[in-house]
């Protein structure tokens, strides 16, 4: 049987960063398993720029960003198997995988990093009714067709959902000669980054219709149009506002779901708030020696933070292999008013260097608010922003010495008025 100190499942930005960091921390026998033909994951189809502002202090395209990591990888002895699919991971950390080249493999791993990323929510998941013709694509699938396969999926487009991929694709399809009729967003605010709304919609005069949804798809063979509607405060379509838009293509940008089938099959429970495994400060899961990072833990909006999380798990792996990873946690985190989730879900102080970054998302748009961390009634720390948006992940850093003043227990994060 093949044996490795670390097996990384998924060679996207999270996995690459985890592997590189683990290597830098002295782990030597590392294997990355990647199901696609190339490393880099979804970055390969993200040919627009805007990646790396935090991590590399410059604007890179997706492939350029992953190239940076692949170059770092080339300096190491980390091994890579591409076009290799992990089928299952046993409780004893034996990885079962297959590839055309190597056939069936069983790999014994001392530590494992899960970095499988996420997938897009589909038409079925959002219960979009009407006909079921061709021409309804998730935005990411359309992006792959255009940027990687070199084909246009349509000419006249309505986009449902204002997630970042949808916004990017509005611009991309326009540049390739398609007409984007509208971007409909169910919520009264966009789910994309502000810079994408400006650069992808406003610059091209593409209307963003907030509080609007698609209620019906028309067309027997290929999409011929959609009926859209304004929604009321309970998000229910208002019949008087029904309006038909002719189009041949509907793109869906209605959210992402961490891909945790392998995680769950390994017996690791998934947190219903994040749809990812519960993790500690170094992204350790409840299963000893198994770590998770990136979009498989929770959906990020910037790859820079995916890399950051990957590095945390790489550090965690190194500590674990040296027997230095403390398991008993001091704190659990909780989402109070206005907060959807908090990652990490647990913190073990002796594993913390200098500070802990708590990632979280707010549930709604908050102007002139503040996010505060409490233990019981005691205020622990606070995070100010000009505005909190559900689309923009909050990075709430708390210094170790601040946490050290607290007794063990729960830390609760809440949004409060200023």
């Amino acid at each position: 049987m093949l044996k490795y100190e670390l097996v990384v499942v998924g060679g996207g930005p999270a996995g690459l960063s985890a592997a590189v960091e683990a290597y830098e921390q002295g782990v030597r026998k590392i294997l990355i398993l990647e199901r696609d033909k190339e490393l880099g994951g979804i970055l390969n189809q993200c040919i627009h720029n805007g990646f790396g502002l935090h991590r590399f202090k410059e604007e890179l395209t997706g492939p350029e960003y992953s190239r940076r990591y692949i170059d770092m990888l080339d300096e190491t002895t980390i091994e890579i198997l591409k076009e290799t699919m992990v089928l299952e991971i046993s409780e004893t950390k034996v990885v079962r995988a297959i590839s055309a080249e190597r056939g069936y493999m069983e790999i014994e791993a001392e530590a494992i990093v899960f970095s499988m990323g996420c997938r897009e929510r589909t038409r079925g998941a959002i219960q979009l009714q009407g006909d079921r013709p061709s021409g309804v694509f998730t935005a990411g699938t359309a992006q792959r067709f255009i940027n990687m396969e070199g084909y246009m999926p349509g000419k006249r487009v309505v986009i449902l959902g204002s997630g970042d991929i949808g916004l990017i694709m509005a611009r991309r399809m326009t540049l390739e000669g398609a007409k984007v009729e509208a971007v409909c967003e169910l919520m009264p605010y966009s789910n994309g980054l502000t810079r994408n709304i400006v650069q992808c919609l406003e610059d091209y005069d593409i209307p963003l219709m907030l509080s609007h949804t698609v209620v019906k798809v028309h067309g027997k063979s290929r999409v011929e149009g959609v009926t859209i509607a304004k929604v009321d405060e309970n998000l229910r379509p208002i019949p008087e506002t029904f309006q038909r838009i002719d189009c041949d293509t509907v793109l869906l940008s209605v959210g992402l779901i961490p891909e945790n089938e392998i995680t769950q099959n390994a017996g690791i429970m998934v947190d219903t708030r994040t749809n990812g495994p519960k993790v500690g400060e170094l992204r350790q899961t409840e299963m000893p020696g198994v770590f998770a990072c990136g979009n498989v833990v929770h959906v990020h909006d910037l790859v820079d933070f995916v890399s950051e999380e990957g590095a945390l798990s790489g550090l965690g792996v190194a500590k674990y292999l040296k027997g230095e990873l403390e398991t008993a946690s001091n704190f659990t985190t909780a989402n109070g008013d206005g907060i959807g989730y908090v990652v990490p879900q647990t913190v073990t102080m002796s594993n913390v260097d200098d500070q802990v970054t708590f990632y979280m998302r707010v549930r709604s748009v908050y102007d002139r608010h503040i996010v505060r961390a409490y233990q019981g009634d005691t205020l622990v720390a606070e995070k100010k922003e000009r505005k909190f948006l559900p689309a923009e992940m909050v990075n709430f850093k708390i210094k170790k010495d601040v946490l050290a003043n607290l007794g063990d227990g729960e830390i609760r994060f809440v949004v409060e008025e200023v």
Partner: protein
Amino acid sequence: MLDVCIIGGGVIGTAISRELSRYQLQVRLVEKNEDVGTETTKANSGIVHGGYDAKHGSLKGFFSAKGNAMYPQLEEELHFGYRQTGSFVVAFNETQEIELDRLLENGTKNGARGLSIISGDEAREMEPHLSKSITKALLCATAGVTSPYELAVALAENAVKNGVEFSFHTEVNGVEKTDDHFVLHTNQGPIEAKIVINAAGLYADRVSAMIGEDNFTITPRQGQYVLLDKDQSFMTDTVIFQAPENGSKGVLVTPTVHHNILVGPNSDYIDEKGDVATTSEVISRIMEAGRKSIDAINTRKVIRSFAGNRATSSKHDFSIGETAVKGFVNVAGIESPGLTSAPAIAVHVADILKEMGVEMVADPNFDPTRKAYQRIAGMSGSELKNLIAEDPAYGRVICRCETISEGEIVDAIHRGLPITSVDAVKRRTRAGMGRCQGGFCAPRVMEIISRETGLSMEEIEKQGKGSYLLTKRTKDALERGGQDA
């Protein structure tokens, strides 16, 4: 000149084609769509009924009990996917309990096997997620689930193997009777046949009227469904019907043969035979009704909703037999339990042909078997090792959600029926049937179809005529040497 031309490639037409392929007959099946099983056959409950429900004395009752008994052997021969799960008809009150007694009596008369009435607690012991308000249930041990479109494909592939020809994209627009044969006028030119079998499903009334037999009509009766993620399979592995009440049959909650959970259908007459749109009103009605049986049904676990139309005849029973026009056989009005009945109906149609005086000589080369797919999902390590060593394409996973390999997709494309669409591959292999609904694998499935069939990416369709997926190359101007610029 053909001996027999079958109109319609649903589960009935394909079952008849396979049955007739046992004999030395020249048979062709014509289908207006791009593949078999693309209309009613692909969108129904997928239940192999116990045969207790359809009224005793009706053709439905006779053929469903008989068809049910034929499934185990058919599965052994053709490997399309069938499981005997058993079914419950559940009652919530005394009125419905009386219905259970009536069904038991009716079923016994029909010759249905494995029937008994059990208490609500006994039912919950077998399926713990059943609602606490269920008071009694009719258990039918011989009921099961199947994959109707895979059955149609399997029947058709086996028929092809035994010499039946299939013509797709072939729509019959008129039928002419000459002295001793028929001329079918189709969009692909005339077809001559001694005997015509009308298995045109929703359109069987129109086809029948072409020869002057217009004594029945087929009205589409819509059924919308909701399909839940496989991780919901804990809910039930038994088909759960609700006892009828006030003329309503309730909805069913059933495992599919591939371990998803299916909830539905409604039963509403609609105007247009081809209208398979879903509506949010009906879908929420179905979900609510399904929760009466199992309250754990979770809207967040929906992966797809779809609709199909049943071919409901104005005669309210199957119409099977030679018409007043000699040589023209109708197999019409085959609505539920038509899927269950299909194998028995096919045998019966062969008998009808014999009675009509057709010379039916058994073909000594008839092979009733169809090779099973080598599905890598669930294979053991040593099985995978051997298979991938033999054909490395089985080591390339194309559909991640359902773990479908390139080897399976290539196999599906080369089984004797032409493959031109992504959905044809999906129905055969399940690539794209999982929770991402083809988001990741559709581009790769298209590449494989293109490579294996020579169709260009733009020619590959989702589901038949006009359902193109891609419009053009992005950089075609560059490829033409920048002449547009």
